């Protein structure tokens, strides 16, 4: 394919910026996403109430966040815990809530999946990609999901086929399409390279 060709289903992530028109703000971050939250607080602090849930891992911005976030900061120790907190907090949220997410792509779409059950559309969530470009892959053959693929070709966790990682992304599944690379010529694999570090 020539220059300029790209698959439009692939999400584009931006730097987080406060939305002034809101009744409240909810910020969800994981690991290095903490820095994205600190960058948010470098901007004007909103008038409306702000809630921040931060899952710390190997990089820890919790200490700094505690100094910067006026109130409403909840530090948890894993993505799973964060998702549980999110489920607990959402019923008390009201129309006009703005949601901001910063973390790995896997994290962003896990959060989006939970928010969808509360009627929050994916397009209305502000997203910043941090930590890693690692991809979640949906095997189109056996339907298994494989996480943290950092290479152009990855092994399916379900059927062990070697999958070419396409740029085609499903928001519904939160995953890129993986297609068997050597179906036409079994065993012939191109060089496997890390391209999503």
């Amino acid at each position: 394919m020539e220059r300029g060709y790209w698959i439009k289903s692939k999400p584009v992530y931006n730097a987080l910026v406060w939305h002034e028109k809101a009744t409240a703000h909810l910020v969800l971050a994981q690991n290095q996403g903490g820095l994205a939250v600190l960058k948010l607080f470098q901007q004007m602090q909103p008038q409306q109430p702000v809630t921040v849930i931060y899952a710390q891992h190997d990089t820890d911005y919790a200490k700094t966040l505690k100094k910067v976030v006026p109130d409403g900061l909840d530090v948890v120790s894993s993505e799973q815990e964060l998702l549980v907190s999110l489920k607990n907090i959402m019923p008390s949220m009201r129309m006009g809530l703005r949601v901001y997410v910063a973390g790995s792509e896997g994290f962003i779409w896990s959060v989006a999946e939970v928010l969808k059950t509360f009627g929050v559309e994916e397009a209305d969530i502000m997203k910043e990609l941090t930590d890693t470009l690692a991809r979640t892959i949906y095997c189109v053959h056996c339907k298994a999901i494989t996480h943290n693929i950092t290479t152009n070709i990855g092994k399916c966790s379900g059927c062990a086929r070697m999958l070419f990682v396409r740029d085609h992304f499903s928001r519904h599944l939160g995953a890129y399409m993986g297609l068997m690379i050597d179906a036409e010529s079994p065993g012939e694999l191109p060089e496997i390279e890390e391209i999503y570090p």
Partner: protein
Amino acid sequence: MALNFKKETFREDYTYSNSDAAIKRFPFPFPEDQYMYSVNIEPHTKGKQGSVCEFTFDIDEHYVAECIDKKITLEQDPGRYQALPHMMDAQWDFVELTMGALAQDYPEHFTLQKQGLIWTWENKPLGIKDTFTFGDTSTLAAEPFDYIGRQLQGDFVLLDHRDETLYADAGIVTSQADWSLAFNVGMSWREWHGPVPRATELGVMDRALKYLLNLQIGSPVRRLNWTMTVNPRLDTSPENYPHWGSDRNTVNAENIGDLVHLRVELQTLFRLPRSNAIVFSIRCYLINLKDIAIYPCWAKRLHRVQKTMHPDLIEYKGMTKFHPMMVDWLAKFDDGETLAIGTQPE
């Protein structure tokens, strides 16, 4: 006129073939010597007698065999049917549209009797007769879209209209040209057409979307799309790519006329009355190169179209391996005669 339904297969031994009449009515998609994407949408009005556009939904000699093939594919992979929960109104709309059209256009094969909401549907070619309450899913053995979708040739996607775009929120897809319903379900128009090369640059997808958002009840539209497939295989899905991908290696100069098929999709779109959803119907027609060459003007036209095909489209349509061989094979039919614009075989 009663149809003679053929016994044939679309997998393994591939006994599929077209009768002389089926070849003559084949929806040849190239009116000009060159091809590029365009918004080639036109009103789905009644076509000439015997043509594939004579009726709302075309039923032909392959009907029974295609329904059997669809059943096999769905048994092996139930994920070929998907319907998000909010699409139930659209499902019943679909039942009303399809049963009504088939009963009206092919009364010797299909009948629909309504007593208020109690409907009796009879499908004679498939030996089905059921009475159910319209709008009550518990009175059918399957979801309504699944129930009747299995009794139709071709694929169907139900598009939900919201946020000024169309979402592919339900589908029954077993004869697709290498796209996955299980992966695409829930996608918006732009996401789902994301991989099509050149079309976005040309603005084709945006214009087509604009057109479809204005689609009115009772004024369906249609277009033709095409690709090439090795063997008369309906299920060229990405799911089963490991099974059919290597077929491309089997093409050689001797067998190409039998093996390589032009695959034409008659795509029709209908606005539905209750749900405001849109039915996207994709009806697949297959013909091998030998049968195309029965009509010299088709062979000449296909030769010119393929010879000048954009390299991105050769790759996107999966023709890379056999494309030069196909152009060579077709060249012997082309004397360079000027062809009038049009697709008629003679």
